[in-house]
């Protein structure tokens, strides 16, 4: 239930007229005078200062919890000083009257104070005295006293109400000097509530919900003077009216909040090898979600996209590095097999298998169109500009420059796309799917973007092994980083096999050859 848009100091935008600020009273008419089908209270009135327009929406609820609307009655305005609205109740029912302000049409002047009076009249004509309910004070540019549940939407629980919290929802971040005070919801784990004076300082605990209020002064000041409206207040002809005022007008909202996590990557069925170190900060939120039955997989290397998905191509793979492997809060490096190798002696191919390596293998046999000089975008490469490589199609490009993947690229099984780049390969922010074999002498960079990037195939950075170039991820999914990797690398065995069958790829593959001198 988003409360509004824009600055909370502005009137609420309530096009559906479903935001209300309610005053209510319950009335018991004890004179037992029958009036046909109806008896008890004939109408209830409210006066708020000298407001001339009837703005109150009235309904009542019978003892069966059925809600009935009650139309405003013509002429209900009394003495041009306030508002009045008829209401009525059924026999045997207790009348509850909610004086609900249409918050989209406030006529009130900011900074003014209005007296609020209520009274009721029964069908016998008995009319209670006007009772002063207190004052409604309109503060200048103040926030509503908001309360509601806070959900850590790092965890997608079914009862989550609000989804993601953004600045434009209750605009908390737009309120200066706002502190959030938390109260634990009964039954929830409150152990995470730490901090000074109840101020929120700690990450919300998984699976818990919290109720909080803003310490800002409310839009409506407290108006109820319950001492003036108590049971037994005398009504004319002996009726008793009991007025109960809600505990101040207030906005109620449920918030979803999440601590920001660092983005992370994951490999699926793919060996991950680095000749220095591997650093992937798998967040604790993923661990908690996994432990709580969620879909997040808190490992660097897995065999499937989510916990409930089928394995892709193989079991998990080996994560290997020379210098070290850091996996953040991950439960293990890999799942289901925690295969990890730190080996300072990992073989390093002299000269690597970079752009010049393939140019050397290809010799002069590679068609001119498959050699590209200078920086290029995928959408500008003939044969690949549509972003689709069909089965049987073989697209090999040796690019002497940088490659910007400015659109998605899909490769059907039986097809192959091999892009060998002497510089960097960058996956732009709009790219969500990239399939094929990508080899860069420099970096493989992933630009920031809103959506997860699925990289299927084979990806090689610093292919020429000159020590310049690595895998750099800048993509962050914002709140979703808590539960899912920003980029996943899925191995495609069919691409390796397609290289063996391709005609062009045959020319740029090297046969294993071992030279050794033997006795003549």
């Amino acid at each position, binding site marked *: 239930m988003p409360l509004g848009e824009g600055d909370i100091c502005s009137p609420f935008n309530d096009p559906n007229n479903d935001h209300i600020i309610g005053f209510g009273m319950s009335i018991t008419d004890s004179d037992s005078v029958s009036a046909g089908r109806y008896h008890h209270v004939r109408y209830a009135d409210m006066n708020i200062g000298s407001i001339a327009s009837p703005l109150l929406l009235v309904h009542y609820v019978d003892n069966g919890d059925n809600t009935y609307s009650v139309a405003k009655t013509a002429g209900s305005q009394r003495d041009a000083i306030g508002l009045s609205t008829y209401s009525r109740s059924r026999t045997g029912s207790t009348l509850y009257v909610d004086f609900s302000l249409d918050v989209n049409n406030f006529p009130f002047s900011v900074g003014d104070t209005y007296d609020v009076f209520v009274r009721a009249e029964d069908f016998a004509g008995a009319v209670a005295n006007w009772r002063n309910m207190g004052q409604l004070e309109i503060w200048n540019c103040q926030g509503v006293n908001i309360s509601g549940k806070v959900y850590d939407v790092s965890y997608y629980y079914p009862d989550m109400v609000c989804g993601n919290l953004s600045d434009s929802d209750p605009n908390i971040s737009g309120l200066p000097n706002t502190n959030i005070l938390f109260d634990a919801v009964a039954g929830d784990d409150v152990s995470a509530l730490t901090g000074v004076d109840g101020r929120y300082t700690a990450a919300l605990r998984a699976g818990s919900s919290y109720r909080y209020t803003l310490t800002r002064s409310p839009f409506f000041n407290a108006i109820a003077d319950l001492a003036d409206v108590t049971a037994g207040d005398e009504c004319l002809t002996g009726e008793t009216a009991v007025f109960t005022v809600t505990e101040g007008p207030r906005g109620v909202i449920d918030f979803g909040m999440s601590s920001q996590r*660092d983005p992370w990557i994951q490999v699926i069925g793919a060996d991950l090898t680095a000749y220095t170190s591997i650093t992937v900060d798998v967040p604790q939120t993923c661990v908690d979600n996994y432990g709580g039955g969620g879909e997040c997989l808190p490992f660097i290397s897995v065999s499937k996209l989510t916990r409930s998905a089928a394995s892709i191509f193989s079991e998990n793979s080996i994560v290997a590095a020379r210098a070290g492997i850091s996996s953040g809060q991950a439960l293990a490096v890999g799942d289901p097999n925690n295969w*990890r190798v730190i080996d300072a002696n990992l073989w390093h191919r002299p000269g690597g298998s970079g752009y010049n390596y393939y140019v050397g293998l290809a010799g002069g046999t590679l068609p001119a169109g498959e050699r590209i000089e200078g920086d290029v975008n995928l959408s500008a490469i003939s044969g690949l500009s549509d972003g689709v490589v069909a089965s049987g199609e073989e697209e090999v490009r040796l690019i002497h420059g940088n490659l910007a993947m400015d659109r998605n690229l899909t490769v059907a099984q039986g097809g192959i796309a091999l892009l060998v780049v002497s510089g960097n390969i960058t996956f732009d922010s709009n790219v969500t799917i990239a399939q094929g074999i990508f080899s860069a002498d420099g970096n493989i960079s992933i630009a920031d973007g809103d959506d997860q990037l699925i990289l299927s195939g084979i990806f*090689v950075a610093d292919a020429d092994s000159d020590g310049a170039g690595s895998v750099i991820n800048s993509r962050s999914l914002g709140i979703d980083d808590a539960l899912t990797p920003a980029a996943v690398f899925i191995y495609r065995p069919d691409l390796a096999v397609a290289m063996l069958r391709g005609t062009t790829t045959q020319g740029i593959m090297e046969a294993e050859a*071992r030279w050794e001198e*033997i006795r*003549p």
Partner: protein
Amino acid sequence: MGRNQAVREFKIYKKMKNYNSKFKNNRGQIALIVLAIMAVALTTTVSVSQRVINDLRVSYQQQESAKAFLGAEAGMEEALRRLKSGEQISQIDTEQIAQSVGISEIVVNQPVTQGGGEEFNYPVTLEPGQTAVIWLRDHNSDGTLNESSGYNGENINFCWQTGAAVEVIYFYRSGANYSIRRFAFDTNETRRSSENHFSAPTMSSCADLSTGATLDLTAGTPLFLVARPFYQSTQVTVEGMSGQTIPVQGAELTSAGAVAQGATKIARKIRVFRGWSAPPSSFFQGLFSGTGVSGN
């Protein structure tokens, strides 16, 4: 004055007489010393001369040997080029190559197929992280993979040397899909339990090597294995089971260069195992960085 002169001459005469007398007494010793000095000088001269001559000879032989090796290399390069381009090795103009490097003879032998038996010893000792492709399918004459024939056994023994850990990636076809299955073994129990969590090998000896494991190939039609050792270098061997033979893995070529030296030759010889064409080792991994990987 005349007398003084006479006295001086007499003294000189006496000194000379004494000297001549001593000299006559030591003549044998001096001769010996002279002879010794001459002998040492002669010996040194002869030794230095021999050394110089030897050095010259060795240097010459090394030079000729290097030329022979260069010739062998040139022959092998040409053979590999012809293999790649499909040209006949028998038509290599060895005389022309020999002349170009200044040697008398180059001999390039026809390729000898490797594999095709019950076991195949991969001819390269693999360094940690280096990969080897062991084919379980046959190859066509143009060097492409023939997916319709090859090893059809349900299992295969994979052998390596104690001390190393190995990853074996099994590529197979299931219907229209290509998939992989990974095996990982380590002979070192400490590493298995505290580091890599690989499996223990199941064989204490395997073919001619010291350890091994039986791989289950039943997931689909076997295509090839990719072996990658860790921690230390190792030889690897695959051993067919149930009478299945390992497909031909490639060919061995030899090339020799020789320089004639009278009736003898200075010869060098090179052997090359040339496997079927395969993607580079980094292509058997999903994400590979020559430096580091940072997820954020």
